């Protein structure tokens, strides 16, 4: 059985539907990537899982439980941790406080996770007392991912973690995602950098116009002519 399953999900913000029937699954321990042109509903599909979007049709199941329309903090309680693309840190809180907010639901000692995040993203250690708003884009992304890791997620939702980052940073982020995954965390990844993302993913989905268009293994999608066209016009 898969860890996360979206079954024919429809919905959007306000009155307008952005999702017109999206289905996808993430298996235990898998990295799954969602690609597609802007406006295809990739981010919206991810937000639907977190309860930030009005779902008007279909079902979202996590670990055997129906979480369709659940409250956002209740989804986090199931250790589904979401990292938005923009506005993914609390700018006036320090780096360390940002990470503490990630552990908000935990009552036990989270010193070990804190140390692990600093190991994973060494630059953060020196900046732990700085407000996150003063960091560069790449460092913010590290804080954002670190925040999500503090809850020992079962499933990590990453929305374009490499958007606007330099190639060096991008490469590093992708490596870290693989490292996180190796510790047993399942990852659902929305990406514009299709090739790299498909490279690290077990499987991928292509969304167009709020619907599934293609799915398959990373290599398969990379070789697909239509997918290539979508991103570079052939």
């Amino acid at each position: 059985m898969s860890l996360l399953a979206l079954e024919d999900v429809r919905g959007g913000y306000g009155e307008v539907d952005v999702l017109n029937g999206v289905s996808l699954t993430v298996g235990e321990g898998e990295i799954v990537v969602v690609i597609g042109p802007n406006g295809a509903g990739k981010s919206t599909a991810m937000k639907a899982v977190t309860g930030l979007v009005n779902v008007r049709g279909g079902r979202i199941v996590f670990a055997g439980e129906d979480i369709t329309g659940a409250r956002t903090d209740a989804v986090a309680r199931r250790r589904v941790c979401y990292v938005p693309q923009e506005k993914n840190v609390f700018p006036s809180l320090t780096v360390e406080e940002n990470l503490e907010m990630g552990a908000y639901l935990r009552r036990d000692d989270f010193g070990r996770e804190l140390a692990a995040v600093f190991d994973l993203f060494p630059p953060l250690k020196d900046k732990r007392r700085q407000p996150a708003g003063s960091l560069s884009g790449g460092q913010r992304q590290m804080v954002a991912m670190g925040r999500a890791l503090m809850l020992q997620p079962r499933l990590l939702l990453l929305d374009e973690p490499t958007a606007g980052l330099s190639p060096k940073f991008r490469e590093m982020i992708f490596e870290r995602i693989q490292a996180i995954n190796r510790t047993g965390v399942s990852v659902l990844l929305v990406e514009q950098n299709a090739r790299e993302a498909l490279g690290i993913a077990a499987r991928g989905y292509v969304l167009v116009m709020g619907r599934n268009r293609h799915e398959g293994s990373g290599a398969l999608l990379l070789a697909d002519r239509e997918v290539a066209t979508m991103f570079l016009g052939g």
Partner: protein
Amino acid sequence: MDIVQAILYGLILSSIFALGAVGVSLIFGILRFAHFAHGDMVTLGAYLALAVVTLGQVSVWLALPVAVLVTAGAAIAVDHVVYRRLRRTRPVILFLASVGVAFVLRNLVLGIWGPQNLVYEPGIKLPMQFAGLRLKIDQLVIIVASIALISGLALFLRMTKIGKAMRAMSDDPDLARVSGIDTDAVVRWTWVLGGALAATAGVFHALDTRLQPTLGWDLLLGFFAAAILGGIGRPMGAIAGALVIGLASELSTLFLPPVYRSAVAFVLMIAVLLIRPTGIFAEARR
């Protein structure tokens, strides 16, 4: 010497402005609207203390914690009945609703206690004299207690889990939800703190002057001026704003009729807005 005396009085006023403005700023940061009923929450707190004093025959200092608790409870209740249902609408609608709440609160107070001036304890307290300056014990307590309370709040926001969650939600409500923060609880805490500080400001101001149904209303402009000067939504900035407004108001009495004290605060705020629309103590962001 007059100047030093005016500064002293200015500090008392600043303390009261700070207690109210911090609440206004906190509520603005988390609930994203200008809480117009804040002045009348201050009034409510002051009169609740009076009720405890008269019914329980106790000193005002014993009545204060009771008034604080009941005001905080009232704030949560009003939020539950009115503001909560309007959260999805625009901020101006919430603001307008708080105008309605303000008039209801003020006139409940007026209906129950009447329009006349009241005091907690009859009799005149003579000020202490030293080095030509006059200061009553109560006034000293007001200044010291306000500093203690606001430092306490600052520590609360810095050190406690819920305090940090409040700052987080003020930064970004959606990201707070995503992190598993129960935002309803944060909202309740905001009203508890805002209400408690408002009630304290009310009791303090009534101690320093007298009880009057428009007591809080007369302070409201000062709260907003201080909060805006400090960069609205940044509670600690409001303290600096309150100092400026309080001191300027009292110092103005040296060359203007004292009745224009509150007008000075307002004119000062407009002047600052012209030069720096985000407030003088706000960091430039974005």
